[in-house]
């Protein structure tokens, strides 16, 4: 058994896979694992450092599929990719297709990854940092982040897969020249107005800044959210299908959800109007159009 550690980097895995393939090493003979586990298994076969004689032909489309599926976090993260690669390079292209047993797992992962990227685009929330400070303070604070400038907007997000680096590019187009930072429990990105900096280990100072940002004007959004909801159409199951509960804790509107549901359920809502609006004085408009 060959045990490899690619540090969850696609490029490293790719080099390793290319080497394995050149020596025609069967997927059964190899496993990817993190370094500390690697000691548990001893390799009894030794292969030369140099590439072997087998020259694999790989469709470009496959490389892209593998790269995307490589963002998936879960069991057999890298081994599965090698198995797909092995089969396709030996002439069996069904391994890339969703109708195949292995291909269907590949496509399930691809779907999870793209769904998680979409979750980042959808459910991430930026908070604006206060701006009115002395230049020296700003420089000092930026130094704490090991950056030259401070971000204008910060966000905390907890993705289930390693999508941050590629998926966060979306915000470059969206936020224009603004500077922003996204911290996660694992990695982080900082856009300084010109380039996107990715840290594989999110600096604790970034995390602290993103998690503790004050939001004095947050009430407007919460008001909107409560009032655009139509209690006469209550359907929490559909909601949870689209907005998994794991995201609620980081969404400002998350804490409102249980109360909105139970209020709609208690039977006070016979129509679409929010209770607070019904309690206010109304105004009939006189005259004809």
């Amino acid at each position: 058994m060959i045990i490899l550690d690619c540090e969850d980097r696609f490029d490293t895995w790719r080099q390793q896979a290319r080497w394995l393939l050149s020596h025609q090493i069967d997927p059964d003979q190899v496993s990817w694992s993190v370094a500390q586990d690697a000691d548990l298994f001893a390799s009894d076969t030794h292969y030369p450092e140099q590439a072997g004689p087998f020259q694999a032909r790989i469709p470009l489309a496959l490389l892209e599929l593998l790269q995307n599926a490589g963002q998936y976090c879960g069991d057999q993260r890298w081994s599965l990719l090698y198995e797909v690669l092995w089969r396709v390079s030996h002439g069996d292209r069904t391994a890339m297709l969703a109708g195949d047993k292995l291909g269907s797992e590949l496509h399930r992962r691809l779907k999870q990854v793209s769904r998680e990227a979409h979750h980042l685009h959808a459910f991430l929330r930026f908070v604006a940092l206060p701006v009115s400070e002395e230049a020296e303070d700003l420089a000092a604070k930026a130094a704490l982040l090991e950056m030259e400038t401070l971000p204008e907007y910060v966000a905390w997000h907890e993705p289930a897969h390693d999508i941050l680096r590629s998926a966060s590019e979306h915000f470059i187009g969206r936020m224009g020249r603004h500077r922003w930072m996204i911290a996660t429990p694992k990695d982080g990105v900082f856009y300084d107005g010109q380039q996107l900096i990715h840290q594989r280990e999110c600096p604790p100072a970034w995390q602290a800044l993103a998690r503790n940002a004050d939001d004095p004007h947050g009430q407007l959004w919460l008001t909107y959210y409560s009032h655009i909801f139509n209690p006469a159409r209550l359907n929490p199951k559909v909601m949870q299908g689209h907005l998994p509960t794991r995201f609620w804790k980081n969404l400002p509107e998350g804490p409102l959800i249980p109360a909105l549901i139970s209020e709609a359920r208690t039977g006070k809502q016979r129509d679409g109007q929010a209770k607070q609006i019904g309690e206010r004085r109304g105004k009939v408009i006189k005259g004809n159009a």
Partner: protein
Amino acid sequence: MQLIDKLSILADAAKYDASCASSAAPKRSSEGKSGIGSSTGMGICHSYTPDGRCVSLLKILLTNFCLYDCQYCVNRRSSDVPRARFSPEEVVTLTLDFYRRNCVSGLFLSSGIIRSADYTMEQLVRVARLLREEHEFRGYIHLKTIPEADPALIEEAGRYADRLSVNIELPTQAGLQTLAPEKEMGSIRQAMQTIYTGQQTILNEPKAPRFTPAGQSTQMIVGADATDDSTLLHTAESLYGDFRLKRVYYSAFSPIPNSPKSVPLAAPPLLREHRLYQADFLLRGYGYRATELLQGPGDLALDIDPKLAWALEHREVFPLDLNRAEPAMIARIPGIGIRTTKRLIELRRQRRIRYEDLTRLRCVLAKARPFIITSDYHPRQAETSSVALREQLRDRPQPQQMALWA
């Protein structure tokens, strides 16, 4: 009145419009530019409310003061609701604030009719112009179009907005006369025509300024009057044909406070709305005609979906051999969608399709089984009568909704 109070009133007043899509806009980016906002063509749902609906845009009315007296509308002039009015600048502030927070991908602005149709439309256009020109906003803008407004204003709106919509609300002139006496089918269709003409004018002019690049849409209310599904679907089909509408939305009528006697005070017919969306999807995406789904007057079945209903009425077509059938016919098999159809076609280029493949492709096999043949499968149910099949395949009634409506 405080901004936050206005927001609560004018969001509450806007929730009856079903549309909240931010898709189909052209690619725009603010990378390295002043201003803010992008669109990728894909819509983004930034949140979901507990009614299961997506929040993609800041959906508000500019004002809920209204001169019209549409019976189904919470904002009709005779309705006893709190009223408010935003200034255009306030709408701009809110849009940009929510956009920077990544709470929305743009604005969907509608309004009650104040002073005149032209004046109201001018105000809506002003908001869009401020966003696009003063603030270089490149996010999504959807403007409601006031049908009676000057066509020149509608054209101006189309140059700022990604999408325009004219709500038909009730598909028959008789329905409008009874429930929305100030509205006219003629002017609604005329406004749709103005938008369609605007789109056609720039069709082969790559350098012309964009005009409603995300198309136009409309909404029909379901269950406010006695209009049947057949009328709704045939109307939708003719709107898709006549004006190349991007979407028709169906909005199950939600009871409104101080409801007039002319409209029902019943729970919204959500399942009926769902079936209409399914049927609409078959019109847009699968090449069905409205007459195939509903031949005469009447409603869609509630206990089976419209695709299954069609298949049960056309047993002579089935079972279909997945290894030979035309893609368009495979897509007509209940439980097999367009995506699965494509995957089956890809797969059968490589090898024969087997029954097991369908499980992996996540077909709804319970529905598909009687209608398919694979290299290792022939349905036992091929000889079962449609009546018996329907009994097996229909959705069981949902547990009763809690007795809010008794």
